[in-house]
């Protein structure tokens, strides 16, 4: 990310506090995370402080301050998934990837995350990898899903 790129990105947005979340979504979509330099530039753009920007972005689960892995694995922790074996799926996923939620594997291939409901509750437990949904996932299913992405690299 360069300062010039970031300036170009910010030109498409308003300069009020209410524009902040949209800006953060856009930066994250563009770079996969919110780089520290971006925070400084957003603060200048909105005529506020970097601490204000950090305050907002760390409040929400959506934004990350570190780049993630190539594949973002999200395991649903919603109640319907939970009663259908979601907890075991989650444990298996942690074991399979060897990381805790919020972390990235050392080869930077996978980041693990949880979500409190994905809204396809009748077919849980649900796992999402980079936007692709997997339904009725079992512990075996976890291993085959991850194997599939490992093969793709």
């Amino acid at each position, binding site marked *: 990310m360069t300062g010039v790129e970031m300036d170009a990105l910010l030109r498409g947005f308003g300069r009020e506090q209410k524009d902040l979340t949209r800006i953060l*979504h856009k930066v994250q979509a563009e770079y996969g995370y919110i780089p520290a330099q971006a925070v400084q530039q957003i603060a200048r753009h909105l005529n506020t402080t970097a601490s204000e920007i950090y305050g907002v972005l760390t409040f929400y689960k959506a934004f990350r301050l570190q780049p993630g892995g190539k594949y973002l694995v999200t395991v649903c922790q919603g*109640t*319907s998934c939970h009663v*259908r074996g979601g907890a075991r799926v989650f444990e298996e996923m942690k074991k399979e990837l060897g990381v805790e939620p919020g972390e990235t594997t050392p080869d930077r291939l996978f980041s693990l995350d949880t979500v*409190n409901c994905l*809204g396809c*509750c*009748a077919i849980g437990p649900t796992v999402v990898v980079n936007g692709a949904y997997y339904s009725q996932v079992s512990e075996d299913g976890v291993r085959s899903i991850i194997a599939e992405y490992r093969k793709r690299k």
Partner: protein
Amino acid sequence: MKMLTHPTQLAAWKAQILEERPVFQKTVVVSNGTCGRARGSSRIIEALKRELDGRGLGETIKLEVTGCHGFCELEPNLVIYPGEIYYGRLKPEDIPAVIDKTLLKDKMIPSFVYEDPKSHRRYSQLKEIPFYRKQMRHLTQDNLRIDPDRIEDYILADGYQALAKALFDMTAEEVIREVDSAGLRGRGGAGFPTGKKWQFCRNESAERRYIICNADEGNPGTYMDRSILAANPHSVIEGMIIGAYAMGAAEGYIYVRMEAPQAVRQVTIARDQARKHGLLGKSILGSEFHFDIHIVEGAGAFVCGEETSLMSSIEGRRAVSRQRPPFPAQSGLWGYPTNINNVETWANVPLIISRGAEWYSQIGTPKSKGTKIFSLVGKVRNGGQVEVPMGIKLREVIYDIGGGIKDGKKFKAVQTGGPAGGFLPAEFLDLAIDYDNLVQAGSTMGSGGMIVLDETTCMVDLARHYMHFTQEESCGKCVPCRVGTRQMHDILVRITRGEGEEEDLARLKELSDSIMVASLCGLGQTAPNPVLSTLRHFRDEYIEHIRHKKCPAGVCPALVSRPGREAAPAVRKVKKTRP
């Protein structure tokens, strides 16, 4: 039809669409909601396109892609018209047979037809299937004929006619009176009368007012709002425009949770189409009324479902709640009077205006009117979204529509109202569902989650699950909620590990009481409900965990015996005491 500048142009547009529409012999509808996609509906659509084009059938058979129409368990599915033939659980390789036999020769393929798991009867028509038969579909009735990408489909279903009626035949006060006498209550959970809420907002004198559609549907196990937005987004937009006219608002916001990407996409497309056709913006349908809608995508915070937090979030701040009063109707977004209603509430508005309060108020119970959409999920056979009249019995929803419990297991309880709600064991199965009955029974309607539990569900573990959720989602502003939910969670973790003490039950009750009384917003005030409810109905299970170090449902890992090993509680780490 480009810009609509007069209400009569709606009918003209509809006639034009009908006239220009190519005539097909058959229509195949494939639902492509979130569940459908997760189960491969996109591949079914591709296979259909490929086969129909390859055989030169593109002009005789129409492929219609719609949002979800409820029966998630049997996704991916398709419905063939005329005849309303329903085929479920399809694979792409099934498509050639569907075309050869059913579409071209009108022959059923028994293996794709729905078979009732109990009676083993087969039902080929959608409306005969018990899952659909017992429903009363008003909000979701058009889902099978609306491609959410096309405003024309909504126009064909008489869309925006209610708006025309409100704008040109009714005063703002009359609209509010109609909604009020229909008896519509807020579908977000609190059940506050919508007409009253609108009147409060209108009564405030201010230079501007805002309205908000709360689509931050965050209760786990609940997904009807995002389905409405993804399947029939214009119904919500139409409801909002009518509401804005009634309250005198020029700007509205739809706040959608980011975990519902399909809803965000569809409602944005719909909003842009409405703008293009003069249904949003300046001089709507040629009237003197101006109104526009902004769409705000959430960023992953459950507390945003609470109205004051949601408004902070729209303002671009940390989504922390604040003291009420002042209520949003007095001082909301940027300090201006603001009305917030839930997605399903807004979707009810066009229905009330077009068919009238008198018709609407005939549905339901004396104090809860209309239909309600529930997410029927968990250990139920036929999971999905069901729209039923208020007053229907829990048993009818779970057994007649839902087909009873999965895998021959026994019903244990149903959870309603999400993390703010409670559990209803078997003795409540004949309870008529409405706002007041559910509260009286110790739960709440919530936004419509209905999670069915069987004997393999551990109630202590589930209480822990909910406390884990609320302590994680607490915004942290007030101490009772931030610290209290954490304390309750830690106690529950101890109990599920076999490290609990009997005094813990009294501690849980005491903490619950303080959190409920002292928390700032709804999240904290209701957070202890799942714990209190399980303590009330399933105290024995807590005692088993504490006294006998056993998890009767066989869920809690530390208390489940594995073959060749006695059940043993995890050894508690001895804390080193400092000298």
